[in-house]
């Protein structure tokens, strides 16, 4: 019996050492055969030895051998569990260094999120803060407060999806500007990104929903020259230092004077009369802007004699399309991962 007990301890010790070295499925299988193999397994052989143990000691000896078998089994199972998550190529490290590495898939942000963040970073750097507001708006915040009289044809350009009563889907993020002006005092320096909605028939560059970012600065002594300087800075930060920028008169009910901002066509530089992007003019309309209309300031109880300000609005989708040469706006909302994932590496 003492002899058997010694043998059990020896087998256990040997097994423990061998188990520590078992580093792949093959050596694990060899280990299992060596200890639990039906004919020559070390543990199996111990059961054979039990036969020669005196009857009065058999019970205790049997218990010890059984315990050994149990712990060997548990250990082997555990090693198997660990090994199944270790690829053989890695565990056999050094055999082939040219094998591909192991990496976890990291998700990719949506391109519109990326582009929005890029825009936000530029303005955050200039001391702007980010404001948001509801997507279901009232006629007052979407139109009236912004100097759109009821029944005015100016509303046609902001073709609206109506909900009920005076509720509608905001056609721009300008209502956020109004809400901020209502609740805070100048100086104000904000940008307002978000979803906007228009009743547009879908085509390559128009969809009934898109992303917009608007900006607003209100303070004493703010001039059109500030509008120009800041937007030029922004566009250079976004499109490169050398980009040419042009401001030309336009009309928006909520700004006076109003300006449309064009940048030079990155596709043809004005050299292709049939250019799909600029139509041969060499200029691409990129954003609308202007000095905040005095009536808009009055509507939110800001004295237009004391304060002045400027605002701008830009379509994120269309700007991203222009920046990356994407032909169809709907790609952003189809969410085809083969499209979306490309931008994670931008």
């Amino acid at each position, binding site marked *: 019996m003492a002899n058997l007990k010694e043998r059990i301890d020896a087998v256990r010790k040997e097994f423990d050492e061998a188990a520590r070295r078992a580093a792949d499925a093959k050596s694990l299988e060899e280990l299992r055969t060596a200890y639990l193999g039906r004919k020559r397994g070390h543990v199996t052989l111990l059961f054979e030895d039990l036969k020669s143990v005196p009857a009065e000691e058999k019970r205790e000896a049997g218990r010890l051998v059984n315990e050994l078998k149990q712990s060997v089994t548990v250990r082997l199972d555990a090693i198997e569990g660990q090994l199944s998550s270790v690829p*053989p190529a*890695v565990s056999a490290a050094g055999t082939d260094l040219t*094998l591909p590495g192991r990496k976890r898939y990291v*998700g990719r942000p949506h391109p519109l999120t990326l582009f929005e963040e890029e825009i936000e970073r530029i303005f955050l750097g200039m001391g702007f803060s980010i404001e948001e507001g509801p997507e279901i708006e009232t006629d007052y915040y979407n139109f009236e407060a912004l100097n759109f009289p009821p029944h005015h044809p100016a509303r046609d350009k902001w073709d609206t999806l109506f909900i009920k009563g005076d509720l509608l889907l905001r056609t721009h993020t300008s209502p956020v500007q109004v809400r901020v002006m209502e609740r805070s005092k100048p100086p104000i*320096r904000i940008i307002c990104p978000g979803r906007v909605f228009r009743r547009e028939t879908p085509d390559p560059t128009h969809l009934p929903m898109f992303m917009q970012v608007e900006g607003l600065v209100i303070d004493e002594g703010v001039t059109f020259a500030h509008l120009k300087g*800041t937007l030029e800075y922004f566009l250079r930060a976004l499109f490169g230092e050398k980009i040419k920028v042009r401001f030309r*008169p336009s009309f928006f009910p909520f700004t006076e004077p109003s300006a449309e901002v064009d940048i030079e066509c990155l596709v043809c530089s004005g050299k292709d009369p049939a250019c799909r992007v600029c139509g041969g003019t060499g200029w691409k309309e990129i954003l609308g802007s202007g000095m905040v209309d*005095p009536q808009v300031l009055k509507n939110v109880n800001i004295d237009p004699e004391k304060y002045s300000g400027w605002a701008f609005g830009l379509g994120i989708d269309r700007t991203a399309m222009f920046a990356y040469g994407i032909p169809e706006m709907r790609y952003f909302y189809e*969410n085809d*991962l083969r499209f979306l994932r490309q931008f994670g590496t931008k």
Partner: protein
Amino acid sequence: MKISLDWIREYVAVDLSPQELVDRLTMIGLVPETVEDKGGDLILDLETYANRPDTLGHLGVAREIGAMLARPLLERDWPVAELGEATADIADVQITAEALCPRYCGLVVRGVKVGPSPDWLVRRLEAMGLRPVNNVVDVSNYVLFATGQPIHTFDFGRIGGGRIVVRKAKRGETLVDLDGRTLELAPDMLVIADESRPVALAGVIGGQASGITASTRDVFIESANFDPVGIRKTAKTLGLQTDAAYRFERGADIGFAPKAAVMAASLLTAMGGQASRGLIDRFPKPPKPRTVRLRLRRIAELLGVAVPEDFVVEVLGRLGFRLEASHHGAWRVEVPAFRVDISREADLIEEVARFYGYDRIPSVVTPVDSFAPAANRKLDRLARIRGTLLGQGLDEVINWSFADPEREAAAANGKTPVDIQNPISTRASVLRTTLLTGLLENAAWNLNRGLDGLHVFETGNVFHWIEDGKHCEDLHLGLLSTGLLPAAGLGTAAAETDFSVIKGAVEAVLEALRYDPAGFEPRDHPSFEPGRALAVLYKGQEIGTLGQLRRDFAAVASVDRAVYAAEIDLAALFEKTPRPFQYAPVPKLPGVVRDLSFLVDTSHAYGEVAQALGRLNQPLLEGFELVDRFTGKSVPEGRVSLTVRLRFRHPQRTLVAEEVDRVVQEVVGQLRSALDIQLREGSIDSRA
């Protein structure tokens, strides 16, 4: 608005090259959208603005070009061959709705020979893309495109009693218009009537019965001014878009009405007719001219550049404004009637800026003051959620806020969708009540295109009606996982996703925002398979659901694989206070670890084990986690093997093995009595 350069030259001398003209018009805000050479004439299609009806005719565009080139507008005479008969003796005009028709001018041209127009007139109309009809109709179109003032011509013989009554329509009245449509008139619509019935829909379209025909002899010329809002409402209600309505709803020049009538009479009499003497001009309340104060100082304050005083006077003068110096550096500016867009100082400053040149205004970066951007906690949290989920291997998607009401109904979440009054299509006629329908569409789209798995998230607003007509707009987070998970490299076979992927992602988000510990309780949800959903709780409040989507819900989007998803109400979550952040010193003393392997009945969920362990009052037990769970060859039927790693530490001293062993025995004892666990033999493994 199309303009012909040839026609413009009747009003102002232009000697720019086509390219120069296009560039300079662009820089004063009259952007030519297309440029076309038509038989030696240059046709420009100008972008128009809703506030500038004065540029809807050649005269107005010429005025802008005159100001741009500092050249005078050329005057032209419109001589009329007159009869001895006075207009007032043969026709009568009465306005009964002055608010809707502030001015009405008219006269009669007798002996008109209706026929083809002369070549010069045909050419002008063809330049506008119009097909000539006959000389009378062509003359009215000519006047409209020349001056922007719409006029209308009636067959005077068909005007009952020679009486024109400008009145509101009577209930039940109808009018067959020039295109043969029968218009149902409403009492708020303005009509031109004769003594008995409507003969035209004022400012929108004429009636067929009083229209010009080959047999017309005498023509009544109408040149009037109508209230823009009234015209717009009428045109919108009846779905009519005409050149006349387009101009009246933007605001026509009330001062120009008589001149346009004379111009038309001059053209018609030049083709053979003779006009009645004197114009009927009903203008009961001529408005006072608008005056606006303009300060030179204010121009500099708004534009950031000092514009020379004589430039201001010159440009505004050429645009038709009358300036009267009130005191030094300030003017009283009288606004011409055709500039309906100008009523404030800022409007005049824009005029100055347009012609001074936006390119001559300097560029100054708005100075950054001392104030720093206000922290936006919501956006910070959203950014952290995105970062966490991207790290979990989920891609971000952005879906429509619109939804198909049928698919929305399949979510069965009991929310009443907000419907859109005038949707683009019936398949996008409500706003989404859940992010899950959009995520399912993404799954269908990508699986149909050969991807073998999809693991995505979206943050965005969902909407629904609550009681008494109020609506909810709440920020949600949606997650979805279906199909194979991405493999990490050789030997890691891509595995099918399961419940734990979504649960792990939700746990990771809540931990990243310190909204932990979160609770998960089995709770059925109509969008999820029964018995396969968990309510997500924070501080006892349900803030979302996760689990396996109901198969018939997924099937509506044609997805037939198992889909795991979650939706979290971020609006509700963000209202809660997260666990405060607190620094804890890194322990200096080593801890002790024991792995405890035991069998437990499969009827006991791991949650019960965790709960039992969590309830233990063992000060030395620092924490625990599940490190292995399996059923296999060596595990009896009906049981499962769990290995829980227990971490022990004493704050002040190093632990000795014996006291840890004692605690482990107590833990085992407590688990045994609570859950009837059975220790696996040789299964307390120590890993210090």
